[in-house]
């Protein structure tokens, strides 16, 4: 069937618009701050052959992983066992899921009794049971991390399956929020089914199928054209997660990237064996890291669907931290995933010196906490924090942003304080935390939580507190992160993967890492250094010692002769 270009344009955009509307529906009807405000979820549409066709605009990290998880869940349950009005729920990391907090809901789309495809959404739940509130923490095996849900039917012919629903909610601390969030997931799929239905009503199944085939081919053609202009060859690098929560022995990741005109192969097989610690990534998470990195190298406007994924090959070795096997703990998989993205960019930095940033935040940086409150019952809260972005060819890394596939929004202080027994005392940039460079890295972020009513169980699940993100081409690394507990006795450092009881009146402070610098700091434009000094982002002392710029604070000017002298010393 041949398609006119306008119909093709309308249908392909309508499919993406359907997933976008699922996003809006899920977000608006959700209860937890993590979903409703921070948008920690994703939506997608798959065709009857389980090819990914359209993805709503939210979290890139989920997109690559849903491509793995949804087809496996449907296959495992059996497409023939899923009827109109049904929905399958799952969060099982093995063999192809992610961490337990990410719960997926898959619903079939039927048209005239025929299976057309599936709408699916994945949302990060604030709690799925397990060893600590918000279900994050340094656990030894997956069973401690919470409720494991293999693909099971949670909605049947349009009605919730009460036994499954009750069994799931019984394992969960924040029942009110999670119940609401799960209903919002059901609603999102209902929206998606309606929208796809309206499209089929308008254009007919034949036209929509033709548009889907053309969309995948079109995406593949354009992706190939993009691959053709990348430097071809094999590039490799290694990098480390700083610690695993039990030992200080760092965790090795290795990536070899083979860029070819007809496809890209990521070889992650040489990463170290999985640990009984929260540093293991599932295959789906590793796949997602590679898909994200590749997407960044090509035209950002290219649609993301099977036509793109076809050209991507990800090889791993089961039993490694890049491909954990049951019963490994996987709650920290996203931390490792994000570091793997960094390692991939490092591998490409020689071939694409103008195409990738210096070391960036490179962690999800979770905080999860909760407790029992006389008014609220058992409450849980989850957040992730921005950090410094790496400096780039001709531009500074942005200060305090989410990075590398992590696209969650801020948790507004006013909303947080209204909903939870917590006071945020500071939310600010961390002065002097940037990796110095000709193009400097971004500053880290500080956020302080005080718990006036306590006690609260607080888990840090993060990294980067030993080594800051690396610099490139003479740039310096960013300042490492700090996780601090402040009690009546004073301050003490918390481990990057640890759980602690916080008493009433105590405070936890996150100070995330700065991004790495790009190029030598003494080549930075002194006027830019001055700007940062006047804005209180960089201290006068640091400007002098690291950037070799003398700033006259009285006059708010660069002392040029002194600066020349300082810089001449470096040259020698």
């Amino acid at each position: 069937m041949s398609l006119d270009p306008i119909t093709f344009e309308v249908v392909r955009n309508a499919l993406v618009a359907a997933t976008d509307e699922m996003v809006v529906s899920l977000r608006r009807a959700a209860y937890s701050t993590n979903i409703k405000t921070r948008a920690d979820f994703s939506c997608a549409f798959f065709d009857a052959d389980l090819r990914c066709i359209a993805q709503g605009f939210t979290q890139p990290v989920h997109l690559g992983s849903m491509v793995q998880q949804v087809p496996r869940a449907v296959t495992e349950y059996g497409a023939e066992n899923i009827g109109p009005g049904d929905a399958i729920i799952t969060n099982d990391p093995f063999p192809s899921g992610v961490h337990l907090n990410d719960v997926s809901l898959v619903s079939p789309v039927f048209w005239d009794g025929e299976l057309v495809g599936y709408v699916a959404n994945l949302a990060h739940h604030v709690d799925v049971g397990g060893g600590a509130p918000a279900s994050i923490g340094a656990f030894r095996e997956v069973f401690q991390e919470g409720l494991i849900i293999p693909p099971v039917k949670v909605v049947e012919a349009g009605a919730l399956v009460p036994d499954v629903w009750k069994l799931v909610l019984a394992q969960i601390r924040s029942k009110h929020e999670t119940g609401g969030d799960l209903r919002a997931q059901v609603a999102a799929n209902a929206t998606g089914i309606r929208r796809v239905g309206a499209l089929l009503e308008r254009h007919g199944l034949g036209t929509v199928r033709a548009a889907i085939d053309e969309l995948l081919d079109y995406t593949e053609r354009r992706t190939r054209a993009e691959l053709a202009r990348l430097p071809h060859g094999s590039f490799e690098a290694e990098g480390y997660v700083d610690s695993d929560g039990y030992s200080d022995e760092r965790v090795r990741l290795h990536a070899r990237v083979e860029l070819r005109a007809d496809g890209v192969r990521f070889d992650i097989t040489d990463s170290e064996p999985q640990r009984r610690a929260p540093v293991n990534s599932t295959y789906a998470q590793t796949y997602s890291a590679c898909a994200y990195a590749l997407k960044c190298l090509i035209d950002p406007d290219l649609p993301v669907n099977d036509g793109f994924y076809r050209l991507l090959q990800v090889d791993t070795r089961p039993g490694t931290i890049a491909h954990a096997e049951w019963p490994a703990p996987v709650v920290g998989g996203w931390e490792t995933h994000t570091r793997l993205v960094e390692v991939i960019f490092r591998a490409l930095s020689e071939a694409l010196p103008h195409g990738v940033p210096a070391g960036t935040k490179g962690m999800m940086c979770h905080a999860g906490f909760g407790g029992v409150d006389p008014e609220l019952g058992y409450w849980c809260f989850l957040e992730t924090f921005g950090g410094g972005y790496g400096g780039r060819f001709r531009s500074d890394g942005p200060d305090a942003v989410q990075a590398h596939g992590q696209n969650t929004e801020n948790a507004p202080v006013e909303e947080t304080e209204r909903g939870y027994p917590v006071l945020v005392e500071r939310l600010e940039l961390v002065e002097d935390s940037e990796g110095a460079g000709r193009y400097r890295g971004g500053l880290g972020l500080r956020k302080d939580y005080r718990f006036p009513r306590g006690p609260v169980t607080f888990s840090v699940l993060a990294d980067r507190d030993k080594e800051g993100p690396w610099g490139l081409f003479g740039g310096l690394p960013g300042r490492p992160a700090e996780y601090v507990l402040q009690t009546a006795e004073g301050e003490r450092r918390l481990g990057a993967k640890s759980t602690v009881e916080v008493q009433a009146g105590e405070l936890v402070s996150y100070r995330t890492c700065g991004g790495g610098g790009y190029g030598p700091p003494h080549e930075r434009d002194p006027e830019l250094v001055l700007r940062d000094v006047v804005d209180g982002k960089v201290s006068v002392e640091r400007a002098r010692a690291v950037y070799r710029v003398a700033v006259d604070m009285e006059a708010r000017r660069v002392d040029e002769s002194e600066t020349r002298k300082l810089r001449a010393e470096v040259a020698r």
Partner: protein
Amino acid sequence: MTAASARVGVDVGGTFTDVVHLSSTGAVQVRKVLSTPPDYDRAVVASVSELAAADCDLEEIVHGTTVATNAVLERRGARTALVTTKGFRDVLELRRLRIPHMYDLFWRKPPPLVERRLRLELTERLAADGSVLEQLREDEVREVAARLRELGVESVAVCLLHAYANPEHEERVGAVLEDELPGVSVSLSSRILREQREYERTATTVVNAYVRPLMSSYLRSIRSGLAERGFEAPLRIMQSSGGVMTAHDAEERPVFALESGPAAGVVAALGIATRIGYENVISFDMGGTTAKASLIERGALTRGREYEAGGSLSAGSRLLRGSGELLRIPTIDIAEIGAGGGSIAWLDAAGGLMVGPRSAGAEPGPACYGRGGVEPTVTDANVVLGYMPGATLADGEISVSVERAAEAVLRVAAPLGLSLEAAARGIHEIANARMTRALRSVSSEKGRDPRDFTLLAYGGSGPIHAAGLAEELGVATVLVPPLAGLFSAVGLLFARPEFHDVRPCHLDARSADPAALEELYAEMEAGLRAALAYLPELEWSRTAELRYEGQSWEVEVELPSRRVTPEALAALVARFEDEHERLYGVRGQAGSPVQLRALRVAALGPMPPADVLAPADPPVRDAERVARFGHDALAVPVRTRSSIDAEPEEGPLLVDEYDTTVVVRPGWTVRRHEATSTLILERGTRS
């Protein structure tokens, strides 16, 4: 002659200032003059006083302006400081943390309108319920004031944490700053946007503060300029929501008037399309520097609660956010792209022909205007193609030279080895391709099929390009209203006075006290009534924002009766649950707690008389003109609007108007809807 009364609409754009004068007798006069940047008020005062006869009683002047928007885009606002709660001075710069372009490794965060050095903190703190955790210290506010004086700021935004719940600290800070810093304008977040969420409230208040001195002096110059010439009529300002407010209000809260001109055009588009009987319409406004599109679906405007000034492609309701200055204000959702009649055509390093986004603006303007412009613009291309006459337009304000247009277009034609006509066609088509993006972003990118819609085209260049764009999008019908070239100014006369007030609250909707709610509503209405004493009658609308406890996005529902009674409250909750299910496909479990989060009142003034009669046709100079369509050069009849009647006539035809030309392409027909004098272009079956 007895004195008739009249109303005047004035729309200031980057290139032209348009004035429409509508007398109570129904007579219409129009004037288009070049804008006079940076003193935009000069053209406003001159053109209004020229049109408004001395014996005419001027009822009101309704004004739409992009002065505030341009100040934000070009970063020409006041030296602005931000005063905030200790520990939170970076809220403005942190934005929403996310990078709006997910796969862009080179994204740059837009620099904040208030630099970090100008963001000062106070040790005070409120809790989420508005109670005071740490008292405000007046001596510290005075220290901050002294610091601000030293820093030489012209405007201050005050945004304290939880001020939406209790504005008292902000009010006190405002009083001290006004006392200590005479002449410096102070914007309080609790007066601009009394809503929870510190980033959104801060960003909106900062933009308000940033444009306030400029807007205020601009509006004062207009008022004093008109007063000097004997015009004392009240000045009203269009808001981005499509309603009008008083000039005094606009001086205090200019952020509500950002993008006010474009909103007027869309309001008028809705009015005229409804009148003719079209309810699914894409409004398309092509002016000198930008093209804008908005979707009207089932007879309703597309509205938004958020807007980004200066985003790369501004399309309010898209999920992509964070590339411009965020404003949380009621708006009409308008997509905008930098392509207009003044957009300059140029060659990139690889020899590719590009159009825009740089514009020749009012100075020097397109080359064909002979005001010093030499670079080729879209308008120059349209002259070369024969679409626009080589003549004087707009009562002699614009004179168009075919030779100058050709000279300019040759500057790109020669290096490309193209003929003059081929280069002009290229420029015209590239401009079309860019504008299709704006049209797509409000239709097909939202899953709406543009073929289900009618295009309503206006703006100085809209009627020239509309039929070509329609062909590209598969649209079968194009409407061109009378006075299309000054349609936004016309729209100002269609707009209703509209005012809002809101009270945030945190109440259980099932157990709230109806009498207390009634009191809150009555209090807001009394306040609005006092402010709107000049309006004879007001129409009221009471709405409430509700959500299930634990959610944070509200659904706005209209109160089912005029007064709050126990029954009305129960019906309100039921309406909310129905609406929630309609919007999101689910309702809460039976009996789920429902919260009342805000009460809203809107006061709407009388609907102005909407019939705008077409002015007399300008004289037509040629009986026909050679125009180019594709590779054909055709001798095309030139007509006036009033010579077209209800019977469809076949194109090609050119309808020359006051300041623009309606291009009826081959394969199209044109007829006139008599009651509104709107031209209806329809694509024949053989297109």
